[in-house]
């Protein structure tokens, strides 16, 4: 199971801050993981629509081609707005 964390607007749209979701074997990268989640129907499809999302794998920013597997902590959030 991959542990997913959601923050801010994404958390509100998903309706929870944390979910454990199994990822199929063929999902190996951040981009594939996002496509997979978007294909799971609502609330994922609309909560994860658009290209402005930021992804962190194990608490470091990740790029679309970075690897993910089922032991990772994956966070999905909008652009940050602190300070």
């Amino acid at each position, binding site marked *: 199971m991959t542990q997913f*964390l959601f*923050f*801010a*607007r994404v958390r509100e749209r998903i309706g929870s801050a944390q979910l454990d979701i199994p990822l199929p074997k063929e999902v190996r990268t951040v981009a594939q993981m996002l496509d997979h989640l978007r294909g799971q129907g609502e609330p994922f499809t609309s909560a994860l629509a658009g*290209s*402005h999302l930021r992804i*962190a794998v194990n*608490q*470091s*920013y990740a790029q679309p081609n970075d690897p993910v597997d089922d032991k990772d902590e994956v*966070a999905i*959030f*909008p*652009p*940050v*707005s*602190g*300070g």
Partner: protein
Amino acid sequence: MIRIQKEDFSIDQEIKSLLADNQRTGAVVTMTGIVREFTAHQHVQAMELEHYPGMTEKELEKIATTAMTRFSLQAVRVVHRVGRLTAGENIVLVIAAAAHRGHAFDGCRFIIDYLKIRATFWKKEITPQGEKWIDSCPGCEAAASQWEELRQLPHTHASQPNKPAHGGHHHSHHSHPLEINWLGLRTGILTLSDSRNLHSDSSGDILEKLAKEAGAEVVARHLLPDDRAQIADLLCHWADDMGLDVILTTGGTGPSPRDVTPEATQDVCDRILPGIAELIRMEGLKQVRSAVLTRGITALRATTLVINLPGSRHGASQSFTAMADLVPHILSMARGGGH
């Protein structure tokens, strides 16, 4: 070095405790962020701040450590508050201590510039009209990217032996184009044409492609007829309500009486940057003599940069390339940043 907390902080106490072990410090620079009561249009009663425990601390550690090395800082402290904060309250404190003021100023600014684009905090504004997530930070990517630009300069000069040296100072001004870095800039593309539709808008398509390749987020795309009031209205909406950083227009800049894009732009902008439009015409002139007939202007509406580009696909893409490297710098200065 890093603290995330609900409670307020005292700047005096933080400086005292930071300096307790640093007898060689000659300068301390602090930056305090405060909840503003008014944003562009709204009365803000409070903010809700959330963060990603674990990652936030890691990101801030990386930024602080980089700043310590790069600016020879002796000590750094970052205190960031979370939870519900009302107008006028402190949000964030950055302290940089160094032997001399130059390093302390640069280090402090470097830390807050990178905190704004990397540290995992999110703000929600609470106003009488309801709640609103703030999920963009106009100009922040540009502000942070300046630090990268400065670092690249000596290398750029070294690779151009025919250029006269600029005295080796890292603030020297460059006259040759640098890499185009529009990372995170919220960009709108507006096509003005009486005859085209969005499916045949090849000039808008090429601008969208170029902006995305430069790292921009193209968040708005529209096509309007050559109607001065409609154009002005949409520019206002994109600048004020959507908070776009850059608006590229294509079309409606010629001498025909139907061409009103420069007039509509002038109607809603407060400051004109003639040099950018001159640069665009100068580059165009190298290709075709009629390029000087484009009447496009480049202007700021508050901190949104509006750039009129010609209507042809080739003219639009060539004009974009002529000026795009300067855009992050313009935005940073328009928002009060230095060179």
